[in-house]
């Protein structure tokens, strides 16, 4: 089979650029994590743990890179089933933190199925759309929607608003890619507008108190600095006080003195922005744009629908996480708990992101092999 043909040219300059970008962004993450947590007394500090996750992530990257993505896609449904079971398990016996149950404890670590669910959803939808006839809105919208629904509901039940939104984002991006006709799009929009109040009622009622408070705090973060808007305000102070050139490594008083909570995870961008200023922020944004640009290049040059859809789905997921994370730390969106890909501390997130990027590069490799 053509699938078996191995790219004889090995790594080219494109791959090196792609991996170089990943390595640089990962380094930014490790450095920022080290800066926030170096003063903590721990036998196994966070930055070392993150390096370990990166190592495991590299293994995941290589596995996804070297396997045939068609084969991986074939495993999509069973994997999705497993993930759904895991999400159910999390609800029953998961480890809770701050009012949410998201983790399954494995030894000293915690495994977060919702992170992996995103990638699996990309695989499932790419697989679906590459096989199923694209005619008819039932097959285009409703059926895949039914596939998305169980996972989405289980994630929202945790509740994990961030992962839930990522889920919807992947679905929406896929719909866009497979080409929803303007009429269908119009119907969806109309339905959305009509249903919004009811859905909002349902969503609002299902939200936990801390989530409602976050939404309220987003509206006016200054009204109670010690309470509800605390995260948002401290994060904005951290970013803003970085000014043009930042306070320097370890100089971020907001994060060093723990005014900024979750400095090594969801709010790592604020730590970075405080220490490196607007200049550093532009550099990091440029790195992300470059990585996404290169990824889109892969999608654009994919030689089959599956590859193109996989690449597009992964890029959409990546874009969504980067934008929402930075937007929420900068006070543009409510705080929904989405980590910054490749930068935030976290085992599940890092491994999943690197696996996704491995799969992405795999699509590019297959493109080359198809010529032979």
């Amino acid at each position: 089979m053509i699938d078996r043909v191995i790219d004889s040219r090995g790594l080219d300059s494109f791959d090196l650029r792609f991996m170089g970008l990943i390595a640089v962004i990962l380094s930014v993450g490790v450095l920022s994590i080290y800066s926030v947590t170096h003063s903590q007394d721990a036998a196994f500090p966070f930055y070392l743990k993150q390096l370990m996750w990166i190592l495991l992530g590299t293994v995941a990257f290589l596995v996804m890179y070297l396997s045939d993505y068609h084969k991986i896609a074939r495993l999509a449904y069973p994997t999705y089933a497993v993930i759904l079971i895991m999400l159910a398990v999390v609800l029953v016996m998961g480890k809770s933190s701050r009012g949410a149950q998201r983790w399954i404890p494995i030894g000293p670590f915690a495994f977060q199925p919702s992170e992996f669910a995103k990638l699996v959803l990309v695989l499932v939808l790419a697989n679906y759309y590459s096989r199923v006839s694209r005619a008819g809105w039932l097959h285009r919208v409703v059926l895949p929607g039914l596939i998305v629904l169980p996972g989405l509901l289980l994630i929202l039940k945790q509740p994990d608003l961030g992962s839930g939104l990522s889920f919807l984002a992947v679905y929406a991006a896929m719909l866009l890619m497979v080409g929803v006709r303007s009429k269908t799009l119009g119907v969806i929009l109309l339905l959305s507008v009509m249903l919004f109040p009811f859905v909002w009622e349902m969503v609002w009622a299902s939200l936990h108190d801390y989530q409602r408070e976050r939404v309220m705090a987003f509206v006016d973060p200054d009204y109670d600095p010690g309470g509800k808007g605390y995260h948002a305000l401290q994060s904005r102070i951290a970013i803003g006080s970085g000014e043009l050139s930042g306070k320097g490594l370890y100089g971020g008083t907001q994060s060093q003195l723990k005014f900024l909570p979750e400095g090594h995870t969801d709010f790592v961008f604020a730590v970075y922005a405080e220490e490196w200023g607007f200049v550093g922020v532009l550099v990091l944004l440029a790195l992300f744009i470059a990585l996404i640009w290169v990824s889109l290049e892969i999608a654009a040059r994919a030689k089959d629908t599956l590859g193109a859809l996989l690449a597009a789905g992964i890029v959409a997921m990546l874009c969504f996480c980067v934008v929402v994370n930075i937007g929420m730390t900068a006070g543009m969106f409510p705080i929904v708990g989405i980590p910054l890909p490749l930068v935030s501390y976290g085992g599940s997130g890092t491994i999943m992101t690197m696996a996704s990027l491995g799969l992405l590069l795999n699509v590019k490799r297959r493109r080359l092999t198809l010529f032979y």
Partner: protein
Amino acid sequence: MASIGFNDSDLLDLQRRLVILRVGLLLVVALLALRLWHLQIREGPYYRDLSENNRTRSVVLEPARGLIFDRNGILLANNVPSFALYVTLEDVKDRPALVTQLASLLNLEPELIQKKLSTGKGGKLQPRKVKDRLTLREATLIESHRLDLPGVMIQVESQRNYPGGPVAAHLLGYVGEVSADQLEKADFADLHQGSVVGQYGVEKWFDRQVRGRAGQKSVEVDALGHEKRAVVSDKPVAGDDLYLTIDARLQKTAEDLLGEESGAIVALDPTNGDILAMASRPGFDPNLLSKELTNKQWAEIVQNERRPLNNRATQGQYPPGSTFKVVMAAAALESNTVTPSTMVRCNGGYQFGNRLFHDWKQGGHGSVDMNQALIHSCDVYFYTVGQRMGIDTIAEYAKQFGLGQETGVELPSERVGIVPSTAWKQKARNQPWYPGETISAAIGQGYVTVTPLQMASVIGTVANDGLSIKPRLVQAVMNRATGERAEFPPTVRGKVAVKPATIALIKAALADVVTKGTATRAKSSLVTIGGKTGTAQTAALRTGPEKDIPKKLRDHAWFVAFAPVEAPRIAVAVLAEHMGHGGSAAAPLAKDVIEAYVKAYPEVLKGVSAGGRTKSADARPKT
């Protein structure tokens, strides 16, 4: 496989749609960049301020108050380290819970803590002092609960300490936290809630000098308000040291002489106004008053019937009794009402209208001149000359001697007493002066009131041959940093318009008072003493012997004295409340004070013959 069975146009269509993603991405990232530019560049300085506020707390470093010494360098007030507890509201997460916690840890009333937290200038970032003088046990208890008490800070500060305890309490005064009312005033503008200021005595009068200047420490704190490191230090400047004119040993002697009785003793050097001792009893321990008192403790002190906080030397106003005859003598001679040889017949009473004014001695003194009248304190003589002079002449001379006005001593709330006159009565009572009232005034009764300090000043002026020097408590102020010592020169208040011959006559008579008159119990073998007794009536109607009268209705005993007679270096006024006759109750105390003084300062006897002995100064050790 499906993967290669796709339609090329479908794939191309799909890939064309990627453009939407690209454009969308660029748009969104541009928006992000715009937002970050807004935060970091446009509002950057604002957020930098916020982050500075977040991390830095400016902590006031209380200055050490200046030390207070007596004239010989004996320490009267110093500072000892102690723990103070501050709360920064900004760092307090749950205020009611903190109040409850602190109340139980420090055994304080929650309302008091609440009050401390809600008063004071500055915002939530300004630490508020909740309690000082924490015991070591309390301080360690708080420190061990540090993690549960965000915003709570223990500072080591210097606390006022009076090594002598109650000695000279009324002079030194005490310190206390600046009150909310005081903070409103310009004098206290540079202070803040929790600042310690003098509330009484020289501590209050010289507060500006003694206070010092507070410093500031910028402390970097973490999110729980715990100190990480001190960033900047503006060192506090210690207050200036005060050198008082008093002699601590003489002060102690004077206080011990009064003992448990109420009264006052003032001793001063008539040549320069230096107050050598100023005792007032009952007293208090300024160490206790400088602490935070509960309302109950404070009420106990204020409502004490014997009024221990009252400085009787400057605030007690008493009829001078016969000590006023010193002033009367000068007035009578200078106004040419009498000559030294004018004789007045004393039959034991003076008839005025239908009223008979008694002499203190039943049967009278017979025919007396000025000298005799002073020696035996003949009332009828002074009734007569007083009546001849009229109240306004008496008032004129009394004022020359400094009565009815502040002595200007450096103590707050000095009282002035009353020198009655026709104008005074019209103004104060809206009544005309009745001639009969002059007769009472002539022997220092009736409306006339004075303070013991004023009387010491009067007798000092006589001793100093009519040159009146302002009494003073502080000799010098020393700047601790530069070591510069600013001396306060004696201030001459004026010379009374009394001829030297008159002064000489009075002084001689007063010397005779001690050797053969009413104050023989003041006679000393060490030094010649001149003086005048006084017995101030407290109730108009009294019958029967002294010991049958309830104590609080008994007369006040007065004695004013100076020594050595030949070249006076000490003037003393003794007032013993409800102790009866001046000659028996007050004169011995004055003698003891004078003797203690000449023993401590034998040089004042130099060139002076004492107690009938020959010149002995050369035999004494020189100092």
